[in-house]
């Protein structure tokens, strides 16, 4: 299963400003991501007496030998990450409502992905569209893709775990 993590530090050679939005860091000290634990290596316990904390290397595309790993620190213990990793997905596929051209005003198209191909989900920053998020996935080893989908992170968790979501959402039609 995916693991919901509050990321306090994300260091890599990609556009890390997108991943750890400065506004969020400034406000609460972390940014929430839904991570695929199949990308995690070198998981280390950094917990203190009062705070569960882990660090690990994370690959956006684990099949691409030229892909460099990111360094992450999250507010979870290694045991919590292990528990999530050992939980089975409802299905090896997950269907997501893709926004064409990453435009939240366009009619969505349902696209089914292999959960193994998904790296992580990240909330969409536009406050007018709170029920959208980015999915970063791989077209196998070939390509890394960032795609806007019309679900929030809680709904993604529901679907990955049960196949459905009970959380209500505001569709783009209503927002328009």
């Amino acid at each position, binding site marked *: 299963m995916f693991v919901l993590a509050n990321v306090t530090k994300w260091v890599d050679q990609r556009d890390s400003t997108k991943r750890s939005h400065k506004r969020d860091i400034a406000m609460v000290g972390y940014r929430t991501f839904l991570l695929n634990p199949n990308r995690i290596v070198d998981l280390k316990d950094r917990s203190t007496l009062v705070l569960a904390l882990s660090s690990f290397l994370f690959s956006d595309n684990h099949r691409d030998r030229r892909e460099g790993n990111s360094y992450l620190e999250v507010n979870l213990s290694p045991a919590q990450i292990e528990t999530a990793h050992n939980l089975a997905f409802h299905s090896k596929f997950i269907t997501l409502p893709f926004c064409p051209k990453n435009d939240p005003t366009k009619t969505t198209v349902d696209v089914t992905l292999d959960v193994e191909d998904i790296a992580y989900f990240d909330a969409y920053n536009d406050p007018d569209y709170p029920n959208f998020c980015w999915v970063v996935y791989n077209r196998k*080893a070939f390509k890394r893709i960032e795609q806007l989908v019309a679900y929030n992170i809680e709904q993604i968790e529901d679907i990955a775990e049960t196949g459905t979501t009970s959380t209500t959402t505001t569709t783009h039609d209503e927002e328009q």
Partner: protein
Amino acid sequence: MILLTQVNSWKTKRPEKYVSLDGDHAIYTLAYGDYYFLNTNRISEIVTNNDGTTRFSFTQGPNDRRCSPDIIETNSSLATIEQYHNAVYPSKFVTLPIFPTNDITRVLIDTPVNTMVELDDIAIVYCTRRDLDLNVAHCVYYREAFKRVTCIINYSFAEIQSALANLTPLIDYDGNIYTTVIIGSQEWIVGNLRTTHYADGTAIPNVTDTTLWEADTTGAYCWYNNDDTNKEVYGGLYNWYAVNHASGLCLNQFTEGGILSVGWHVPTMAEWATLGAAIGGATIAGGHLKEMGLAHWDAPNTGATDTYGYRLMGNGNRWVDWQAGDGFDSLLEYSDTWSADAHDANDGDSVYAADDSAQLYDYNSEKYGGMAVRACRDI
């Protein structure tokens, strides 16, 4: 995992000889009947078309970053693809008879070599028209990320289906796993049926009370001595009403790799006779079918050779030989097993082998009796 699907179009940027150019993508010259075996672990970005067909990206070498995905349109629905993708095979390897050279003109000369290939590494299996004439097929697999290999295998299209089907275990509604044996023209489950549900998901009542058991005419089961530790070894004891219940006891009970396994049913007496005839006649059939040793049979376990791996055991019965007390009797002595046939209004037909004989006997008993069930199908 390996999906047999009818392909409507296949666009690729690969430069294989068997593709013809069409715009910026090449289009595969589709093989016989446009049917392909595709590994679902290569599939992503599935979109359902208005008519229920699907298109998706298909990466032949998922670990090769230089391998751009093909775009394939198939007649398989999203649900079917998902069902295959979620299927679990008991083995991660498949043995393929691969010819030493990828030269179709040498398949009548060369001898194929049985080679174990990891299922995950297989991308596509297909037959060209020439393959069909020669009863062979083409297989594309990867040496992990390293190299794409196209080979010719000494399997016909039907044999590939059979080889893949044999990799998947038979699972009943409850998730109990069975292996099977083929004897003559029939396939049988190994071990007795253990399901507690009919094929449509209706729960079969587990009747432990003796009075209720004798009175039941709607279908019931129990474990020997009402002890569920007997389930795994001896299976369930079902009354004849459960055997012939409208919801189906064996029919549509089993799946293989998430796919309904068709043709399974409770054998008729004619089918029990066919089994006996296939292994030398009823007088020695019991010996050929009985498990050897004294773990699940009383001594002397006459003639037991378990020639075919059928593992017939002394599962006993309920309310057949002993119609008093709790009614359980003959464990380790008799392998009472129902047929689908009614003997008359009150009795059903059955067969049994005994600890002191090599014969497979015909028998009949009141329909409220509890006996084991073996599923079979024609092949």
